């Protein structure tokens, strides 16, 4: 079993929390993993990504080779397209539809979404609205993780457990919101 995942977004959108959740779940499942992330300059509103490699055998490279990613999880729609060179022929894209517009030449969102729809295996959900509906506008990243969960080679409950150990310290209320966000994302994704 191997699961190569690219997690993408814009600095500050919480992609490291997505990676940390999958990472904790992987350790609990005794899987091998390597997860490369971006710190430093690009964090300031620039494009950021994390290469996440999960396997039942030791993982050599910290980076995913081109054309080998099984899944792109993106918290921002345009950013999901930036990593297409890594996506395998049968790979999936799970992305948020809400754009983060912090550049003057951001393309029309409809053009971006239709470009994403050209990929045969794509799921587009409005994570920001879903997060607001359940009462936590800041949990959009976890909604996306929930939407991607059917494509991650680990059980859903192990992701829930990972959220418990990640957010447990921050209090019952914050943990519950994140568990709800994960569930809502998953339900939207299965329906879509």
């Amino acid at each position, binding site marked *: 079993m191997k699961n190569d995942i690219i997690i993408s977004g814009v600095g500050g959108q919480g992609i490291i929390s997505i990676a940390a959740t999958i990472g904790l779940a992987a350790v609990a499942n005794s899987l091998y993993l390597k997860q490369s992330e971006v710190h430093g300059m690009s964090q300031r509103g620039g494009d950021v990504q994390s290469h996440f490699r999960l396997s039942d055998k030791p993982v050599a490279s910290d980076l995913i080779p081109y054309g080998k990613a099984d899944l792109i999880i993106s918290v921002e729609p345009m950013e999901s397209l*930036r990593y297409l060179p890594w996506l395998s022929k049968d790979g999936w894209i799970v992305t948020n539809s809400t754009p983060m517009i912090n550049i003057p030449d951001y393309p029309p969102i409809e053009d971006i979404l239709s470009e994403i729809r050209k990929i045969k295996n794509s799921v587009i959900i409005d994570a920001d609205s879903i997060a607001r509906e359940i009462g936590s506008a800041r949990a959009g990243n976890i909604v996306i993780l929930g939407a991607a969960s059917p494509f991650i080679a680990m059980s859903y409950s192990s992701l829930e457990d990972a959220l418990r150990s990640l957010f447990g310290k921050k209090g019952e209320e914050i943990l519950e919101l994140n568990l709800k966000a994960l569930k809502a994302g998953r339900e939207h994704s299965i329906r879509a």
Partner: protein
Amino acid sequence: MKNLLLLGDEAIAQAALDAGLSGMYAYPGTPSTEIMEYIQSSKTASDRNVHREWSANEKTAMEAALGMSYCGKRAMVAMKHVGLNVAADPFINSAMTGVNGGLIVVSADDPSMHSSQNEQDSRFYGKFANVPCFEPSDQQEAYEMIFDAFELSEKYKLPVLFRITTRLAHSRASVTTCEQLPEKKLSLPSDPVQFVLLPSIARRKYKSLLESYEKLKYDIRITRYNIFRDGTKRDMGIIACGIAYNYLMENIRDSVKEFPVLKISAYPFPKDLVQDITGRCKSVLVLEEGAPMVEESLRGILDDGIKIYGRLDGTVPRDGELNPSLVARSLGMKTSYGRGIPSLVKNRPPSFCKGCGHSDVFNALIEALKSYSSGSVFSDIGCYTLGALPPYSSINSCVDMGASVTMAVGAADAGLFPSVCVIGDSTFTHSGMTGLLDAVVKRSSVTIIISDNSTTGMTGGQDSHATGRLVSICRGLGVDAGHIRELTPLRKNHEENVRILKKEFEFRGVSVIIAARECIQTATKRKRTESSNR
């Protein structure tokens, strides 16, 4: 023994703690920052009261670590690659004095310049100083090497260079830890003049340094990381250094028995190790992250030995970091590029956070400079360097820590008017203060703007030595109190700030403008911690 999920940086920090570290010294710099941050948040470090405060710059960090080592205790100092330039003087000379307690110097290189001004390869510094250099290939190896590095350092009485690159520093993997060793007790060097580099002593010490460098090549703590494994092929063998070994394994995992491979993760290494490959194979491919250091030394100036493939003949690109696909190509293997990036995807460069004080500084500066010709703003290294990008496009230099002050001084010497500098608070206390003293002594006509966000912002908000001290530092250096102007960079103060800037440009002497407003990232973090503590 525990299994921990750690960044490469964190594996190094955890290993140092487990190996009985007494003092950690550093100045923040991507990709090395998380080493100190991990130690600062470690319970073990706080229980043992391991020294773990930031230093003013890499030179002071290196020297303080040497002082800790002088007392017989284990010390580690960490910096980004260009930080080693700042610390080069004590680093090179610490090889001459030698150490007492084990001393590890971590230098984190940034090939492809994700967050840096150059991609210099720190391994050259190891050779330059005649000290051992480790280059781990993965997180677990990094963890284990730290123990060997401390032992090696104490056995040969030498500092040890520990070179990592961005991908290892910032990649997480599971690391199995060992039992913790106790810290060393305070004990001074047995030779009272060991650290006295008077020429007569230095000459003697240099001879013994050169002898040690030869002996090191055969020490088990080095040789165990340089492993040759034969394969069936005879047309080409492969030398893979540090993290390049992982990219190689990614590609030859299924045919690993075919390729003769020499994995190099510790320097210096002897000739016979390389001859294991060159004696067997018709050619050799050299894979190394950073500069073609091993490749160049194999080729020599004549390059008339066996056929060598690598960065110098274009088999691997001459610059930039490696990745598994580049290595596949260098092996002649097929790569599987996915789809191209659609043309509608636009670049998204880093930018100021919404509400950042630096942007108000630049807005005021742009307006104040309108009546002068352009090209007169020297800047420095930090978030405010983003002032070079649109819509501001308002700085003309970013060279090295502190250079904004001294370049403005030199430009004023040349007759440039006005000559303006924009520097951050932490960068100012890192390397700007001495330049300001130059300006004061020479009565240079410069305007120094310190954009003070009370933190080391770009690296994620570490404490700044400058916080609360800027006015007294500038006065102490001799800046006229009437020309130390404090302002708050807020939109509502824009007109007033423009007026102050214009006035100080016209002053023929040194003026310092301290534009102070807390970084909005650290302010948010601080408010969140305060409310959760309540």
